[in-house]
């Protein structure tokens, strides 16, 4: 009977906790934006800035892209991030956009 209890506990862990852990292993944030509506056109690309506190002074450059979206997979669970985007044309860079924010899931249930 004791043996069956262990099997039950193992089965419960597998079906409840493993899917939660797997889902929380790779938190990601997708950031999208629209091209500028004024200034020099067309733009050559974008710089993506990220911070963990609001305000443009606390954000750091995390990458460049020619697309109008990024998927940020270098984020931690249960953490709020702030993003701002700037446009590039030749050697000129626009001001940073207004911030967008998102909070990754996690830090609950079996992963705690």
């Amino acid at each position, binding site marked *: 009977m004791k043996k069956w209890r262990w099997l039950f506990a193992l089965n419960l862990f597998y079906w409840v906790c493993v899917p939660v852990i797997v889902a929380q292993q790779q938190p990601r944030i*997708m950031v999208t934006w629209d091209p500028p509506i004024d*200034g*020099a056109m067309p*733009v050559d690309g974008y710089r993506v800035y990220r911070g963990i506190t609001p305000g443009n002074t606390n954000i750091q450059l995390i990458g460049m892209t020619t697309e109008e979206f990024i998927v940020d997979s270098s984020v931690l669970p249960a953490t709020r991030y702030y993003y701002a985007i*700037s446009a590039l044309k030749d050697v000129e860079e*626009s001001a*940073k956009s207004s911030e*967008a924010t*998102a909070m990754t899931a996690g830090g609950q249930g079996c992963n705690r």
Partner: protein
Amino acid sequence: MKNMKWLLFAALLLFPFVTSEAQVAPQVTVSWSGAVVPTPSALTYKVERAMAQAGPFTQIGQPAASPLLDTNVTRGTTYFYRVRSSCPATAQGCGTNAQGQVVSGDSAFSTTVSATPPILVTTPGVPTNVQAVAQ
């Protein structure tokens, strides 16, 4: 002959870049209709420029014909131009008219015109509608 081919090839390669650079440099083209005188070959035009409508004006060239290309200009600055025709102050001047008079000296000034080389927009605008969604 072989070298000439390479020279032509190099010139063709360079041509677009030379054209492009010429478009970036600011310039003002001042043009006018020519004056009618008995001896046009003696006629020149004095072109003057000022930073204000009322002057003071400074002569920036004296070409024999229209137009004059002013490349000593800055983008975003307004320049004022006026032109007058000029015949030599000599016994021959620009020739003798139908009344038997020698045409010489400077004409009155044209009306004043202005031009502003446009400021090039080189800085891109700010991206809009930024959104972040956790997945």
